[in-house]
């Protein structure tokens, strides 16, 4: 792995400080962080928990590709993309993206690009659990 990229897919709790510290760089004027959190409702229905599963080796490869593309596309220094799998409860953190850059504009844009691309290409799926059942999110395009 390149020294300016950190990719983690784990069943453990994600750590914001780890991401922040990885991208911290003395040449940078700022760090942008995106923290995904499990929401307590979807389409007006109360969500109990989410279950994330992944095609793990491919998901890691795709996350790495996104990191490389983001570095190529934007003037940033370092990037961390960490994603959780397994059972997550309301308020838990399934994803963190951290980006550092000399100037804030690139960091915000890069962070936005990375999370949007992750949601399109990385083979990770979530199942929403309700009081009365469960459903695979986005399963019917």
């Amino acid at each position: 792995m390149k020294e300016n990229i950190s990719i983690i897919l784990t069943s453990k709790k994600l750590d914001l400080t780890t991401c922040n510290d990885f991208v911290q760089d003395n040449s940078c004027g700022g760090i942008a962080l995106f923290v995904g959190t499990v929401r307590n409702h979807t389409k007006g229905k109360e969500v109990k928990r989410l279950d994330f599963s992944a095609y793990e080796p491919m998901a890691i490869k795709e996350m790495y590709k996104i990191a490389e593309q983001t570095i190529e596309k934007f003037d940033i220094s370092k990037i961390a993309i960490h994603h959780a799998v397994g059972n997550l409860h309301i308020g838990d953190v399934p994803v963190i993206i951290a980006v550092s850059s000399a100037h804030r504009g690139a960091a915000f844009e890069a962070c936005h690009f990375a999370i949007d691309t992750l949601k399109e290409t990385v083979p990770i799926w979530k199942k929403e659990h309700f009081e009365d059942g469960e459903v695979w999110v986005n399963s019917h395009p």
Partner: protein
Amino acid sequence: MHIKTLFFGILKDITNSNSLELEIDKDNNIEQFVIVLQEKFKGFPNIDTFTVAVNEEYVEKDFVLKDNDIVAIIPPVSGG
């Protein structure tokens, strides 16, 4: 030729399995291979509703399979 197929997300529920080992005719492409899966599993979805990866890389529907490839059926992803 021998092909291993992996199922994820809703496809796991539809096929009631995580993976499947199959012997199929030589030079099948993805489109032909999906027909084999549709014949095998009741309710297997239309090819336009998922993407396919071979050996952990996304491929198009005309991609030609070779012996011992690992095919992953990837329903719409929902990470993040």
